[in-house]
């Protein structure tokens, strides 16, 4: 009983989100399934960034790179299922390039869509963190990386579809032939849904274990950690890779639902959107990331039709207000408020509010 009482609001909110996502296919149209399916992949992406930003304090201005890599890998795999897609033959090649050969098998494409982000993140992370690139420099380097990625994708039209993206994807809304059997969009929705639950639980676990504690310590006071036998670069790199894996996986899930892959879901602008989700929801407790991703996208979807261009201003003002009035985001502030009430209720005046506890 007392244990139940100690559960913070964010857990209940997370539960509510899961229940809502679970029943959507039963109560709603296929169109909503598609929309919310997309949102689920966004939520997973947001969780990935929360691992990096919320836990290790490493805001990444180019986080969508990994989402992009995951989705390009699976997207190309889907596109080449029925022979050479248009954008490749347009580029003048007649045969599938050797490096795309492994993608002919969707299963290996799924694995690669997680593995490649991990490898790239390990390389980039090692490079960034071993070089002692820190603080704002780190942020800007991530911005530079995503700009580079965008340029690269647009430049390599023959292999990536360039600015138009990959659109010959044979799967899409209705069915996806995978592993020989048909997977409907609803099946895929639930695959994404279950993945989301596992990733959420994984995040909670990561937060609690010693590894999580060390990265908190690094976020807090990196120079000090070194004198306690930890190499911060190693821990940061691993965190980077974990978050990249989550993002790559989300990108892979995204493909059959969106049936379309382009730089718009892996470039600078999209990366900044992911940051906005987290800022709105609040980082450091994973519910915030989920709420932020869901809320912003849902509102964008509904309000942008009603308000047109004004939507951008509304989003901007909301973001501004949140940053200034509740720097911990919606959920972070809620949790803090709940904590304050509890502390006041139990008259434990000695203990003051702590960020740490407010976040758990």
């Amino acid at each position, binding site marked *: 009983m007392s244990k139940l009482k100690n559960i913070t609001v964010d857990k209940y909110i997370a539960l509510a989100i899961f229940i809502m996502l679970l029943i959507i296919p039963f109560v709603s149209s296929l169109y909503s399934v598609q929309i919310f399916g997309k949102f689920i992949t966004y939520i997973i992406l947001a969780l990935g960034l929360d691992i990096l930003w919320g836990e290790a304090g490493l*805001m990444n201005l180019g986080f969508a790179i990994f989402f992009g890599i995951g989705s390009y890998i699976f997207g190309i795999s889907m596109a080449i299922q029925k022979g050479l897609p248009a954008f490749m033959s347009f580029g003048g090649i007649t045969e599938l390039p050797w490096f795309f050969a492994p993608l002919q098998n969707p299963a290996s494409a799924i694995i690669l869509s997680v593995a490649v982000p991990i490898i790239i993140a390990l390389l980039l992370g090692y*490079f960034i963190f071993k*070089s*002692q*690139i*820190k*603080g*704002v*420099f780190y*942020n*800007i*380097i991530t*911005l*530079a*990386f995503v*700009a*580079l990625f965008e*340029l*690269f994708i*647009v*430049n390599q039209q023959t292999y990536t579809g360039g600015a138009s993206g990959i659109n010959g994807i044979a799967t899409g809304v209705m069915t996806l032939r995978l592993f020989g059997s048909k997977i409907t969009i609803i099946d895929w929705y639930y695959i994404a849904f279950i993945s989301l639950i596992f990733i959420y639980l994984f995040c909670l676990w990561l937060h609690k274990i010693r590894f999580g504690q060390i990265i908190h310590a690094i976020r807090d006071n990196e120079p000090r950690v070194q004198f306690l036998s930890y190499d911060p670069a190693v821990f940061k790199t691993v965190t980077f890779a974990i978050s990249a894996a989550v993002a790559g996986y989300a990108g892979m899930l995204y493909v059959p639902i969106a049936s379309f892959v382009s730089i718009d879901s892996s470039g*600078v602008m999209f990366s*900044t959107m992911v*940051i*906005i989700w987290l*800022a709105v929801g609040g980082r450091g407790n994973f519910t915030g990331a989920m709420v932020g991703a869901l809320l912003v996208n849902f509102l964008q979807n509904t309000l942008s039709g009603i308000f047109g*261009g*004004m939507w*951008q*201003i509304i*989003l*901007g*003002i909301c*973001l*501004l207000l949140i*940053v*200034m009035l509740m*720097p911990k985001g919606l959920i972070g502030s809620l949790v803090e408020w709940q904590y304050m009430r509890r502390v006041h209720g139990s008259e434990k005046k000695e203990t003051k509010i702590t960020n740490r506890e407010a976040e758990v």
Partner: protein
Amino acid sequence: MELLVSQIINGLTNTAVLFLAASGLVIIFGLLDVVNMAHGEFIMLGAYSACVSINQFHFPFIIAVLTAAVFTGIIGAITEKFIIRRLYGRVAETLLATFALSYIFQQTIRSIFGPEDQLMALPINAALNMGNIVIPIYNLLLIVVSILILAGTMLMLTKTKFGMQIRANVQNRTMVQCLGVDSQKIDNITFTYGSMLAGIAGALIAPIKSVTPDMGLSYIVDSFLVVVLGGLNSIFGSFLGSFVISESSTVMAGYMSEITAKLLIFIIIIIIIRFKPQGLFFAKDKR
């Protein structure tokens, strides 16, 4: 050979453009620790106000540039007073808030002026012709202005009492107050100054680039790269940073595709940062 020479000269123009675009960012970033993601939008506001001055009010170009500086300066002062002031010392929050601002500015301008290009004629259409090498006078003007801004800012920071206060203020706001300095005023002036530089940049860039609500986007990434390359505490560093980036990419672009050149530059910058993580021209004598 002629191509090489022209490309080198073009590189100088691009240096000037990039430095103009980046200078305000360096001020705000280096002195206030504020990552101004709306910097591109300040440039855009400068460009629009110059267009309005010229197209609606038929001001001469010089006045239009000054108007742009005043206008963005005012917007900057207001922004600092009501938003940035509350966020000093929280780098991530400054980034998010200015992000939000960039959305707001962009869309506001779009609602007022529409999405299309604004008309902005070249104020000086003459050019120096030396065989096949053409140097537009306007480009020379850009180069001169950027050098003036560089020199003026450097002198102001290092040689004046006001500059000293600015530097002290970024290090320890509370202590500055304890010595009788109105640090909020200093912050405000610094931010305003950075915004004015952006406005000037926007006005000067307008005649040769497109003037659209989202034009700021094209400057922000490069400007940040300049800061990173030059070292964020040095305006002179960012001038050299602009020079390195523009000169090498322009010269390379003469001989390969623009994208390949750009990719190469990116990679070179990233490698440089690998070995000089604080920027090429980071002042070493620091704690």
